């Protein structure tokens, strides 16, 4: 046997490909950058860019307020001042909670309706032929164009807003699920069939688990999309509500508050997304391994 080798030796082959390392779920080599570094760096980059944009001062602070102005608005929004709480009569967290609760309900309904709809579209061709165009039709309608219809049907309170968010969120979920169903591998379906599975059992034991990763991707897109729609949903009677606050203060040219709202929306969405991805890691870890 040749003796153990020195570290200065020649090598053969390419060092571990990052493409495959990623796929194997391997982490970066030990002793490298700590994991908290990345979100901090990301936040730093964004705030730095923003600060630089305002510092060069070519745009009026009225439209792009500086970080310090927004910080000031933030302080206002969480304190009582002039005897009134926060902004527009509510603290920031009350606004946020109101919107979050609408989004949670909208997206929950979207899951409840969109996932089975996607399953049906993916599984049953005549239904897809019939309902597919209706779904593509619905999912591309602009909320600002039909929101008044929702108001006449569901009133000016939360119901119509939740409906709007639901309409925004259901389509990505259905589409992803339908695509996932279409990619369920036939040999797995066959395996369950020869074990005696009926259609319902094929769906339960094979199609549904196969579709989990797609469902999660759809859910992530849907939640993001619901957030982008929150301002549209809260243009009428949207206080308390983070979108309603943004919309109302923007009209008053309190763009510091509007930007504050936009940032709060963004951060909340990032955290939600992070949560969903943790869930995914836990429940769809097999994905891509086979």
């Amino acid at each position: 046997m040749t003796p153990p080798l020195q570290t200065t030796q020649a090598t053969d082959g390419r060092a571990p490909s990052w493409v495959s390392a990623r796929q194997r779920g391997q982490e970066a080599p030990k002793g490298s950058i700590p994991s908290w570094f990345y979100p901090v760096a990301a936040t730093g980059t964004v705030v730095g860019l923003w600060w630089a944009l305002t510092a060069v001062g070519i745009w009026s602070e009225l439209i792009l307020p500086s970080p310090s102005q927004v910080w000031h608005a933030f302080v206002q929004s969480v304190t009582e001042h002039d005897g009134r709480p926060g902004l527009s009569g509510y603290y920031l967290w009350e606004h946020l909670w109101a919107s979050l609760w609408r989004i949670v309900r909208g997206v929950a309904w979207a899951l409840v309706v969109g996932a089975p709809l996607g399953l049906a579209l993916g599984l049953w061709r005549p239904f897809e032929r019939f309902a597919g165009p209706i779904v593509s039709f619905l999912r591309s309608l602009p909320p600002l164009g039909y929101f008044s219809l929702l108001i006449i049907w569901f009133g000016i309170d939360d119901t119509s807003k939740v409906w709007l968010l639901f309409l925004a969120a259901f389509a990505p979920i259905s589409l992803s699920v339908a695509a996932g169903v279409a990619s369920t591998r036939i040999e797995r379906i066959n395996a369950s069939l020869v074990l005696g599975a009926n259609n319902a059992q094929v769906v339960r034991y094979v199609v549904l688990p196969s579709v989990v990763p797609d469902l999660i991707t759809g859910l992530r897109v849907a939640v993001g999309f619901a957030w982008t729609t929150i301002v549209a949903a809260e243009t009428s009677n949207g206080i308390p509500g983070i979108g309603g606050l943004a919309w109302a203060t923007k009209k008053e040219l309190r763009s510091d508050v509007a930007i504050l709202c936009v940032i709060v929306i963004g951060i909340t969405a990032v955290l939600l997304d992070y949560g969903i991805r943790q869930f995914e890691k836990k429940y769809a870890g097999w994905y891509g391994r086979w």
Partner: protein
Amino acid sequence: CGSNDDSSNAGESTGLPEKIVIGYQNIPNGDLVVKHDGLLEEAFGDAVSVEWKLFDSGGSVNEAILAGAIDIGLVGSSPASRGISSGIEYQIPWIFDVIGKAEALAAKSGINSIADLKGKTVATPFASTSHYSLLAALEDAGLSESDVKVIDSEPDAILAAWQQGDIDAAYVWNPVLAKLTADGGKVLISSEDLSKKGKTTYDLAVVTTSFATKYPAALQTWLNQQNAAVTKIREDVDGAAASIAAELNIPAADAKKQLSELIFLNASEQAGAEYLGGGLARNLFAAAEFNLKLGKIESVKEEAAYNAAILTTYASAAK
């Protein structure tokens, strides 16, 4: 949903609804004073609950009324004229304010008269009182729609486009208007000037016809509070400005400045022939005809319909 839906109940015997749903807008007038100072809640006590719903434009208020979602709302005279022309069943018991210098046509330097706007781009929020005023001003200066590029834009987008240099002028309201003039914008004409030429614009209260007929007492109470707010604006402008500033999340000084650019009338002034007594109906009818001529609306109702839409009795009876 508004109280006009829950028709027959205990409320009717007392002449008071269980609740009043009010659609308000963030416009610095008495309505915000009433809201912020809790005047209505105080006046009604526990008998009637009051719900305030924020709207972003007269158009949304019109829709909410059509949807039966509110009882009383605030709309500009343009959406009001349009609403009556389309047959929305509501009436006007009160004028929140007459738009004075708060809405105006501001132009970039180098443009000194409306005639200079020929070939230029002018922005305004469509279907608003400003839009109406702009078209009236252009017609008055002998310009047709094809001479000027009129584009639709939300107020904050107007400011952005102005700073970008994409537009040459804009007919818009505060606070954007103030920023345009502060940024070198020159006021070519204001709504106050147009008012002198018979093209007055207003912020109006609208109440659904069903609410007005069912609950006259409640409506009267509501109007009395509005009258009180006007009194406060006139007598304690700093106090009123503070209330408004709190509602709008702006400094009190700004609120005070904005208040000064609107004209407020108390109940007895409103009841006169110039306003609720006849002038307003003529104004709304004329506005409708003007819009019809420009192709902005499809049809105009009989003049009587506009008369019928004005309620004078409440202002007359106000305390």
